[in-house]
């Protein structure tokens, strides 16, 4: 294992470790598209919060290709795929008591969504 040395701290912290992957992976969705979040309940690591599962949203932006945490956390590889900024209305998530004007944005991987 490499050992971080004091003189490496500044350059490494300034460079960071992006989870972006330079891979030619086709996106499954396009900005403007309506999606339905999958109702998955894995016992393993996921970055899909429960509050958004089974909800309808709109793809706003394609952020590009990133490592997929659900596999990366378990030694199952990067499975690179697109991540999108997806917009949900407050009412869609929380019901009629939510303010009609409020919205929430979440970043979702291809594997978290289906077309609708």
């Amino acid at each position: 294992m490499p050992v971080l040395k004091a003189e490496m701290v500044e350059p490494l912290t300034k460079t960071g470790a992006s989870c972006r992957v330079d891979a030619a992976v086709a996106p499954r969705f396009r900005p403007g598209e309506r999606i339905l979040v999958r109702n998955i309940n894995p016992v393993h690591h996921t970055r899909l919060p429960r509050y958004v599962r089974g909800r309808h949203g709109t793809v706003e932006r394609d952020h590009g290709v990133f490592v997929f945490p659900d596999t990366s956390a378990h030694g199952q590889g990067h499975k690179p795929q697109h991540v999108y900024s997806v917009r949900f209305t407050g009412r869609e998530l929380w019901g009629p008591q939510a303010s009609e004007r409020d919205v929430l944005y979440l970043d979702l991987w291809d594997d978290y969504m289906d077309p609708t």
Partner: protein
Amino acid sequence: MAHRDHNAPLSDTALRVKALEALLVEKGLVDPQALDAIIDTYEKKVGPHNGAKVVARAWTDPEYKRRLLDNATAAIAELSYTGVQGEDMVVVENTPEIHNMVVCTLCSCYPWPTLGLPPNWYKSAPYRSRAVIDPRGVLREFGVEVPDTTEVRVWDSNAELRYLVLPMRPDGTEGMSENELAALVTRDSMIGTGLAKTRSAGASTKRTRASGGQHERRA
């Protein structure tokens, strides 16, 4: 947390951290000087004063603002605020019509190079649970009133994108230098739980947003 009595015995947690460090150093897996350099970087060097400079630049330079909103990572890199937990940035702009607020419901994701390390409240259960379901209630707790006509946008940083709010430039700040403007930009205004300070001294911390500008309610 209150100031700790330095004569009190070290807690179990503190002892475990000491043991962990001692073992890792003993086994040559961690270099103690690197530890000190890391701590120094994030305790003394990196902080919201970085993000404040980004905001002040955007307020004074429309072309920079356009670049910042289009490709935040590249624009922030122009000011050298790059690195760990800021590799993929998105800047979201507050306007009279839109108020943005950032949270990480699942853990504590936060843009370190521009804001430093997050405060405890950001990483704790009350904010993480309420920000997404009752953003206006949360804003009220921070003393920020948002009119019904303003759209509140909550950004849950569940992936590796890190979000920075570009607060509105307060009224009455024409002619101020970038440095003077940066001094008005609070950490909370870049998270979205606060507004930038107005230039008047002794301004109340309570703020009211009205469409078309900002008013301040004096205490």
